[in-house]
């Protein structure tokens, strides 16, 4: 710790930081633009000027930019110095010379960092009496709106987009006061993290185009903390609603998970909430096969009646439903009649991952820890498409090793431009073994394209080189050479990381990744292992239940009633199998929120709430339990799945004393599974109050509440109550800073933009006050380091099939919910079969022509796409783009050219 003096007040601070972040951490309001905690300092905007003094005797001082000033012992600065104050005011005056006076019609208004800084610096009177420069705007795709006239040239957009996220198609053009930020020509922004421009831009240049379609001011949104439901990473989000529809998603800062950012799937995938095929009310199938809408009470009664009259009721849960909903179903149908809703293979893989992560010594990293690793081996995952934010973390990780050089020449890590100039394009070791070219290749050291079994072979070989006790497998020389190279890299690394997952649908890969991580751990106990799983609650679902879908689908037992929870079974198994299975049951009760193939088979359809409309817990790929809250209460006909199931159970038992509420359900759930005990401490209970108040979901500036329904009734209706959470649905309640897990928005006096996050952190860029939300339920065990998988691995690797199917994930397109969002649908590829150039030549088909595949007695015809670097003999099938995506990888496949 060192001492610095700010306006003669002494502060003890950590060395090695810059003065701006230190001042902000200390609570000073020092304005800035070009600096961002995740991007570091470049000194461009000159907004954070302070007076710096040589020593205690220096009365004159000199202006200095706080963001570029390293804090050293006895540093003396003044924020309040009149010249510094005037200079900061003048910087805003300069920026305002060309900034339009369109706050009233600007989407950023009310949450604009430029507005905040303008007020903070005190600039109000315009002395510039010339014309403003103007620009033309560009079409940037379905997600981002472009309004260049508002630009204040802080350069944060290109620094995020290019330097942080690896984008190539956004740049700064021209010079002087007409520097332009955009693409070389109009077109969809190519980078999967483009949505962060909305939050990175300090003003209204890049705004959320999906939000614009149903725009609402920040202060008029009802918001609640939520968790992204679109992949297994579990990014924290703030979801906003008005007039009963979800309006937008923002990143909710969590230093261990997503930090300041989100991927575009997470940010723009919310539009499915307003899909025209939302199931808005419960309905019952008539004998004619049509559906009749019924009330929720009738639906509950009907379900109870069906269940009471059934001998055997089977419940099938879902990895995209909350733990609570799954548990409610399990409770209703009894433990022995409940199945996880995940297929055998996937279930087995996830189970194995959990075994590895909780019984061995290698631990699984947070996303923040991933960004700190200095050597990364990816086995079979196309991260940009399967766990996008993990890909973003890997982009930061490859800079770790080269960044060491900056330390050697005394360039502080936060001096971003200088660090980048020093290390240039150099990247630390990243090896990717995948069936095809992946998007991280622009930063990789080496790539290995192979079928998933051969990828496993590579990992087994590296493991054996690192530790002779690890099983040896027979491989060819090329693979051995690569394995030797990677082994050497792992030996030299300080923080090596192995990433694998279930995306290739190859269980052997999990074993191989484990062997590699264990062998590496023997050399270096800082080794980390991360697994990607398919869905937001895949981990939680497998932690909760051992019985998987195939066990019931393949059984010949008689089923009277099937209850399906938020699960489109047609995405799990092939059509015939599921049709046969569903036809076995007399009653099929389906709870879901979007129409899909399964809901069309329901005899009783119950309208569920989406993630944003529900409260619950998901467990992410690292085993972190995270709570999400209902943003708003949808119309009466829709209920959370757990509530439906609770009410049905109450009706079945016809016991008026049963209470159906969240707290009772949670208590029951936690007491049912010892592995969930910690969930009790995840977030404050529903009864939590601050100064006797609930936490308000609406801001204290929320407007129009007496007018918004005046067209229906002049008297304001009674607000909804929320007995299930510590939140109120209205602006009545606490507006300060609640505990992080129940923080519905970021705001602080004078800080209306997302930059107000500064005020919620213990120190800038660090954990939130009271700790980041989320609790790890899976932790590694010390000791036991050398448990190697050894059973028949050689035979499994050498098992040859004529054609191996490899799933190909698409960030936009794979994901049954996100692809129902309009913007994402626009960017989803057309269905295709991916084959290698070699196979295309052999079959004599060109891109755009079709092939026919025969599998399991069914045949499918589809256009082909040649997939870069896909080895011959592999067939890449886009996940969830068509029904054939449910074909498992193990079947024999015949491919022929389809006649036109």
């Amino acid at each position, binding site marked *: 710790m060192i001492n610095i003096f700010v306006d003669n007040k002494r502060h003890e601070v950590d060395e090695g930081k810059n003065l701006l972040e230190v001042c902000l951490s200390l609570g000073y309001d020092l304005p800035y633009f070009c600096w961002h905690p995740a991007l570091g300092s470049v000194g461009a905007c*000159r907004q954070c000027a302070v007076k710096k003094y040589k020593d205690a005797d220096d009365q004159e001082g000199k202006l200095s930019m706080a963001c570029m000033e390293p804090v050293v012992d006895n540093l003396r600065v003044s924020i309040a110095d009149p010249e510094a104050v005037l200079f900061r005011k003048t910087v805003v005056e300069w*920026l305002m010379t060309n900034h339009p006076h369109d706050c009233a019609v600007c989407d950023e208004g009310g949450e604009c960092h430029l507005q905040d800084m303008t007020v903070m610096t005190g600039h109000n009177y315009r002395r510039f009496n010339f014309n403003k420069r103007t620009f033309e705007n560009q079409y940037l795709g379905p997600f981002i709106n472009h309004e260049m006239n508002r630009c204040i040239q802080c350069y944060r957009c290109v620094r995020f987009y290019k330097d942080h996220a690896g984008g190539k198609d956004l740049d700064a053009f021209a010079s002087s006061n007409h520097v332009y930020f955009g693409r070389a020509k109009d077109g969809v922004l190519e980078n999967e993290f483009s949505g962060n421009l909305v939050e990175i831009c300090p003003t209204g240049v890049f705004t959320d185009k999906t939000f614009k379609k149903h725009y609402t001011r920040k202060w008029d949104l009802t918001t609640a903390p939520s968790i992204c439901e679109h992949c297994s990473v579990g990014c924290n989000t703030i979801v906003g609603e008005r007039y009963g529809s979800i309006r937008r998603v923002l990143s909710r800062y969590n230093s261990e998970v997503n930090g300041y950012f989100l991927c575009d799937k997470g940010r723009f995938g919310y539009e499915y909430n307003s899909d025209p095929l939302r199931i808005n009310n419960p309905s019952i199938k008539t004998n004619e096969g049509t559906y009749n809408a019924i009330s929720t009470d009738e639906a509950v009664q009907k379900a109870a009646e069906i269940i009471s009259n059934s001998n055997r009721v089977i419940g099938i849960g879902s990895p995209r439903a909350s733990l609570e909903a799954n548990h409610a179903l399990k409770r209703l149908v009894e433990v022995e009649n409940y199945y996880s809703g995940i297929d055998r293979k996937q279930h087995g893989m996830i189970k194995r991952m959990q075994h590895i992560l909780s019984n061995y010594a290698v631990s699984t990293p947070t996303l923040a820890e991933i960004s700190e690793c200095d050597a990364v081996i990816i086995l079979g995952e196309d991260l940009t498409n399967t766990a996008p934010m993990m890909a973003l973390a890997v982009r930061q990780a490859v800079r770790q090793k080269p960044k060491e050089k900056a330390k050697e020449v005394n360039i502080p890590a936060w001096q971003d431009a*200088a660090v980048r100039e020093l290390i240039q394009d150099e990247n630390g070791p990243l090896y990717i073994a995948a069936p095809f070219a992946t998007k991280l290749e622009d930063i990789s050291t080496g790539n290995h394209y192979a079928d998933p079994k051969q990828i496993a072979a590579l990992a087994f070989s590296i493991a054996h080189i690192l530790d002779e006790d690890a099983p040896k497998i027979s491989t060819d020389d090329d693979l051995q050479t690569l394995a030797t190279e990677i082994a050497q890299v792992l030996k030299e690394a300080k923080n090596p990381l192995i990433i694998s997952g279930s995306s290739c649908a190859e269980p052997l890969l999990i074993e191989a990744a484990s062997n590699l991580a264990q062998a590496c751990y023997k050399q270096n106990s800082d080794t980390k292992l991360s697994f990607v799983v398919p869905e937001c609650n895949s981990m939680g679902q497998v932690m909760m239940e051992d019985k998987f879908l195939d066990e019931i689908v393949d059984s010949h037992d008689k089923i009277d009633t099937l209850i399906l929870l938020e699960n489109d079974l047609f995405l799990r198994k092939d059509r015939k199998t599921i049709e046969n299975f569903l036809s076995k049951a007399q009653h099929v009760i389906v709870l879901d929120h979007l129409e899909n193939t399964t809901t069309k088979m329901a005899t009783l359809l119950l309208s569920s709430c989406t993630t944003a409309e529900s409260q619950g817990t998901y467990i992410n790929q690292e085993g972190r339990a995270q709570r999400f809250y209902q943003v708003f209460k949808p119309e009466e006909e829709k209920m959370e799945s757990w509530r439906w199931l609770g009410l049905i159970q109450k009706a079945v038992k016809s016991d008026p004393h049963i209470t159906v509420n969240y707290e009772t359900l949670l208590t029951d759930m936690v007491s049912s599974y010892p592995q969930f005990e910690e969930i009790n401490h995840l977030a404050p209970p529903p009864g939590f109050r601050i100064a006797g108040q609930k936490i308000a979901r609406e801001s204290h500036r929320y407007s129009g509440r007496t007018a918004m329904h005046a067209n229906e009734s002049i008297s304001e209706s009674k607000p909804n109550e929320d007995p299930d959470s510590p939140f109120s649905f209205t602006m009545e309640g606490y507006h300060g800073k609640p505990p992080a897990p129940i923080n519905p928005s970021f705001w602080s006096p004078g800080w209306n933009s997302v930059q107000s996050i500064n005020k919620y952190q213990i120190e800038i860029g660090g954990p939130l006050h009271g700790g980041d939300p989320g609790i790890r339920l899976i932790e590694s065990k010390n000791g036991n380091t050398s448990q190697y998988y050894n059973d028949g691995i050689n035979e499994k690797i050498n098992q040859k099939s004529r054609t191996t199917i490899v799933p190909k994930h698409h960030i936009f397109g794979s994901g049954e919910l996100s692809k129902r969002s309009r913007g994402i649908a626009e960017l989803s590829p057309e269905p295709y079969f991916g084959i290698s150039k070699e196979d295309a030549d052999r079959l004599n088909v060109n891109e755009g022509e079709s092939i026919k595949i025969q599998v399991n007695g069914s045949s499918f015809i589809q256009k082909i796409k040649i997939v870069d670097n896909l080895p011959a003999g592999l067939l890449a099938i886009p996940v969830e783009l068509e029904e054939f995506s449910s074909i498992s990888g193990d079947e024999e496949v015949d491919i022929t050219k389809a006649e036109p």
Partner: protein
Amino acid sequence: MNKPLTQHIKSDGRALSLKEYEKTGGYQAVRKALKMNPEEVTEIVKASNLNGRGGAGFNTGAKWSFVPMGDDAPKQKYMVANADEMEPGTFKDRLLLEGNPHQLIEGMILGAYAIQASVAYIFLRWAYKTAAGAIQLAIKEAYEAGYLGEGILGSKFNLNLHLHTSVGRYMCGEETGLLNALEGKRAQPRAKPPFPQISGLFGKPTIVNNIETLSCVPHIINNGAKWFKDLSYTEGEGGTKLYGVSGRVNNPGLWELPLGTTMREIIDEHAGGMKNGYQFKGALPGGASTDFLVTDHYDIKLDYSSTSKAGSRLGTGTIIILDDQTCPVGLLHNLEHFFAQESCGWCTPCREGLPWTAKILKAIEEGNGREEDLELLDMHTRFLGPGNTFCALAPGAMEPLQSALKYFRADFEKHIVEKRCPWR
């Protein structure tokens, strides 16, 4: 009088061939230096008091001495010659580039040897087409003669020299902006520290020197530090200086004179004095980004220390004269328009402040000035000062403006009061 830099330049201005250059003693300094330690070369240059001729005036040898040397130093280092001569009124390097490119190349070999750089670049202004041809040819000759390439003159020292023709922005003349441009990036300046000597071109230790500076080096090595120091009239500063004069004088041009020659001598003797009917009103002594000197300063020595004492800078040593028939506001508008246009757009004060000052000056010149405009101009001269902006471009741009507001304020006021330009 000793004129080491220009004495051999031919009257037709055509470049000396390798043979012609060798006849004048060319490349003897390289032969001599290769027998010395690199550090010794640096020491001699340091002792010679050769100050950077690009405008900043920093001791060249001292600059070189910050480059990490020895076995632990990075293997790759670079020597870069800044031939992006774009300072308004400045045309001194052009003479050396066109007339004697081998002298520059020899200086670069010596500098590269001193810092042990194996790759060197000449970063040339796009418009200097004649110079480009001459340099290209000279580089070819030097390679063929074994002065460049692997194992120079049988030593273990290697140097590969490349000519890079820039597309041309004023910013490229700023040494770190130049490095970014050379890397193929936007010509934005870089923060210092780290200095280019530590992290320069492609993140490697790099020296960027001006053409005139580098052209002095062979003569220093050949004749010694003391000889070079003695060339100067001024104690503590070494060498001759290329002085230029533009404006309404009888004989505008460029002359190599001892450093510390007075402004009076340069204007009255070498430039032939003011043209008939024109009075000297003021002068920018070292290019557009230096403060005005006025009649009171007519007798000062144009060296680094005296010019600085008089409130200006020697800069590039090329004088722009303001006469009594020319409107100072118009001159300033022209200059500030140039600087505003050449701002790279990186930092706010420069990007937004310079266009604002140019607009105000235009308004005043056109008779649309307002009383508060002078206050705004004053504010800009203060807040666009050194340290407040990211690099030296805007502070340089403010030097002629702040001094014009000091010496010619009445002229500005007259414009505003009369709502017209008194010179029109």
